[in-house]
Structures are given as structure tokens and as C-alpha cells.
């Protein structure tokens, strides 16, 4: 067995992508362009084993996500098991499939926190972005149900140039719904979002205004609403500390069982991923090539290698470096020290001023929609 080149502590969090099936079609979906099919999904027994392994490994929080995790009939079983082994349980959902009996069963299983995505505060625009008529109303109802059930609620507001003007209304909505936490998550440009970048990336001055609005709201709502803000870093001077460093804190398991250092990592060609079907989670965390490849600082090129921020931002994001320079081992172009930085800024400025295109909505390739979402899997 190959020894780890960069010793690492235990992971903090596991993103369990139970499925890629989802009733929505958001054009910035964080799932990969090639979606896992229902027949490829891990079975319940394997997930239960993986949850045990995660807890033993030191994982503290598990995020049940997708796709839409509510299409999995075993969700309550998995949540119950995660609680039993001491994990903090989060459900990351679009919530359009959430009804009162289902919520009750998840709560009874021990669910602690629900994160609901919102596409906008304007119902028509929200439904257009999600490609799901009536979705916004269902989300509002679901969010109220979550609070009435006494669970913690986070509103995940995905922001971009087609809804950013409504940021103040989004903050007000989060308060109105009784959320304890709001994620103002500007779209990050990988996969589907990269394909739709021209239609989504906001102009620089709007990003600046958003940063100010969030800073003002944070101060005003201290102790009442926690606001996390993820900005698009095309206009930044230094890159984001993506994932807190590659393979430092975080594991992502795709529906098929492949273990990824981040949800976008499959966009890096040539990176070999291991499956929980073949190796234990602990072995994968320590030894899997996908994890060791960019862990720590020894993989870094200049200017990262000698940079005094190398253990602060870890060279930025590997997937963004791949998407924008064709080399996953390059300095993230969001960094002003990257030779590609100026071009990135120009691209963002030009695209944000151009007329938005029709969205390329998230969907399975070349299959009828009936096959994407087997009717028997959808609660009615």
C-alpha cells in the first residue's frame, strides 16, 4: 500500500449525494454533466456501512443531498443511522417533494437541520430558473413546515445576474420564514453553471453591492440570522480556499459510490476515483489517488509553492484551474498572480454585459424524462 505523501487529520464533513434524480432543472446545478442513473445508485446496506465508517473516521456532520435526496425511500433509515452513530444530520433539499408526513418521519428519525434552496423571491422567475412550475410556492410551504416542526432551517439562495437584484428581498424572506441561517451562494462556474456562465455571471458592481448588502445585514441581524456569503471569485484578487484545502476536511460520495474530494472533481480528467463498493472510506480518505493528488502543498507550482498564502487558500480551486486553464495543477486563475487572471476578469466583464442566452437546463443526456424520474419513486 502506498504511504500518504501528506499526512492528514480526520475529515469534518461528508456530503452524501444519494441520487442525481431531481425534479428541478436548475441551470447551475452542482452535479456533474454526466449524471448517475438510478440503477447505479448505492443500496441502503452500503450507505449504512459507509455511515459507520464515516463516524469511525471522525466525520462530525453528514449532509444528505443529491440530486433530490427525498426521492430515496430509505432517507429516514439513513438519517436515523447517522444520528445513532453521533453525526450531525443535515438535509439539503429543493423541498418541492416535502410534505408533512414525510417531514414527520425524518424528524422522528432524528433529522436536525434542513437546508432549502430558493431560486429567487419572485415566484415566476424562480419557477423559470428551476424549470418547475409552482415550485416556489411549494418551497415556501415546506420551509414553514420545517419551522413548525421545530427543526433548524437554512435558506440556500443561489444568486446570479438574473436574481441578484432581489438580494434584499431574499434576506427578508429568510427572516420571515424563521431561518437561522442564510447562504447567499453566488453561482460557482463548474459543470452546468460553466455552460450557462454568460447568462449567470453578474457585473462586478453588482457583486460589490451584494457584498455591501450582506455586510450591512449581518451587522443588523447579529444573533438573529447567520449569513454566509460565497462570492463569485472571477473579480477577486485572491482565490477562495476551496473546500478548506483539497482533501483536508471534506468527502463527497456520488450516487454510484465514487468518493470525491469535492462535488465537481469529476470534471478533472485523468483523476482516478475509488468507490466505497471496493475500499473502505478510511482507506480512500488516506490513500485514494484522487485525494492525495492535490493534498497539502507539495503538488504546487510557482507562484503558489513559495507564496505565504499557500496554506491559507491552498492555491485556490483545482476544478476552476482545470476549467479555465486546462491544467488542474495550475494556480487558480482567480489569483492575481496567475498569468490567466487578467483574461478571467475580461471574460467576466464581457459576459456579464452580454445578452443572456437561453438556459441549458440540467438534464440527463439522451433519455426520455420518464426514465430520469421513475414515477414510483416520487411521492404523490
Amino acid at each position: 500500500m502506498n504511504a500518504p505523501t501528506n499526512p492528514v487529520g480526520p475529515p469534518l464533513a461528508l456530503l452524501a449525494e444519494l441520487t442525481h434524480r431531481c425534479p428541478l432543472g436548475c441551470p447551475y446545478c452542482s452535479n456533474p454533466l454526466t449524471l448517475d442513473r438510478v440503477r447505479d445508485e448505492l443500496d441502503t446496506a452500503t450507505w449504512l456501512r459507509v455511515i459507520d465508517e464515516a463516524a469511525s473516521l471522525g466525520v462530525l456532520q453528514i449532509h444528505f443531498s443529491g440530486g433530490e435526496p427525498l426521492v430515496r425511500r430509505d432517507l429516514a433509515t439513513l438519517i436515523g443511522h447517522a444520528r445513532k452513530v453521533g453525526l450531525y444530520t443535515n438535509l439539503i433539499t429543493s423541498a418541492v417533494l416535502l410534505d408533512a408526513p414525510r417531514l414527520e418521519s425524518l424528524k422522528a428519525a432524528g433529522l436536525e437541520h434542513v437546508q432549502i434552496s430558493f431560486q429567487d423571491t419572485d415566484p415566476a422567475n424562480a419557477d423559470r430558473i428551476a424549470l418547475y412550475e409552482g415550485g416556489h410556492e411549494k418551497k415556501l410551504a415546506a420551509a414553514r413546515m420545517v419551522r413548525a416542526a421545530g427543526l433548524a432551517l437554512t435558506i440556500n439562495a443561489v444568486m446570479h445576474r438574473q436574481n441578484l437584484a432581489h438580494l434584499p428581498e431574499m434576506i427578508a424572506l429568510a427572516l420571515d420564514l424563521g431561518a437561522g441561517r442564510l447562504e447567499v451562494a453566488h453561482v460557482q462556474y463548474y459543470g452546468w453553471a460553466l455552460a450557462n456562465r454568460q447568462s449567470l455571471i453578474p457585473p462586478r458592481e453588482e457583486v460589490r453591492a451584494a457584498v455591501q448588502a450582506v455586510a450591512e445585514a449581518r451587522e443588523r441581524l447579529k444573533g438573529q440570522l447567520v449569513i454566509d456569503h460565497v462570492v463569485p471569485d472571477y473579480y477577486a484578487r485572491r482565490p477562495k480556499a476551496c473546500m478548506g484545502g483539497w482533501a483536508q476536511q471534506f468527502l463527497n460520495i456520488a450516487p454510484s459510490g465514487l468518493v470525491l474530494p469535492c462535488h465537481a472533481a469529476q470534471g478533472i480528467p485523468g483523476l482516478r476515483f475509488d468507490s466505497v463498493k471496493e475500499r473502505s472510506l478510511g482507506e480512500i480518505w488516506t490513500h485514494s489517488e484522487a485525494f492525495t493528488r492535490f493534498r497539502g502543498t507539495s503538488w504546487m507550482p510557482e507562484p503558489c509553492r513559495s507564496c505565504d498564502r499557500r496554506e491559507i487558500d491552498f492555491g485556490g480551486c483545482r476544478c476552476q484551474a482545470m476549467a479555465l486553464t486546462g491544467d488542474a495543477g495550475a494556480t487558480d486563475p482567480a489569483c492575481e498572480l496567475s498569468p490567466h487572471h487578467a483574461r478571467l476578469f475580461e471574460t467576466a466583464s464581457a459576459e456579464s454585459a452580454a445578452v443572456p442566452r437561453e438556459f441549458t437546463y440540467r438534464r440527463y443526456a439522451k433519455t426520455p424524462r420518464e426514465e430520469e424520474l421513475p414515477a414510483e419513486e416520487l411521492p404523490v
Partner: protein
Amino acid sequence: MSSALTETSRPGLSPHTRMKNDAARGGWVLLAPERVLMLDAIAAEILALCDGTAEIGAIADELARRHAAPREEVLDDIIEMLQGLRDKGLVTA
């Protein structure tokens, strides 16, 4: 709205926030929605006394006694720590 904590505030962990003894790292952690906070021994000791009924003054008395430390210093440290956690939504009072 958040106001300043005083000696008579009765702090407790926010709903959906809990402490856990983390065997993998050897220490207490605070778990909250999509947040993990590593607690040092003192922070863990303070939070263990925050049950929503005890006043900060009483918590300061207890810790000053345990550590044979000046009460006013202990009180200031407790208020500073809890105020920070309250601003982050992890503690109520």
C-alpha cells in the same frame, strides 16, 4: 435583536446546537447547522454549565472557585466568549 450579555443573563446552547466529545480529535466540539467549532478545555467547561437556567454570575462563581481565579476576570472572559457565540447564533440568552 441581540443585546449585550450581562451577569444576570441565562445562556444556553441554541436549539439544534449540541456538544459532542470527539474521540477522533480528542476534545469537545460544538455542532450546529453546517458548523463545527472545536472547543478548548475552558470553553467546553463554560458551555457545559450553560443550561439556560444558570445565570452568568453563578457560572463565574463556580469557575472562579474551581480554578481559584479572580472572579471578575473569569466573568469578563465568560461574557466575551458567550457574546461571540451568541452573535454567531450558537448560544441563546
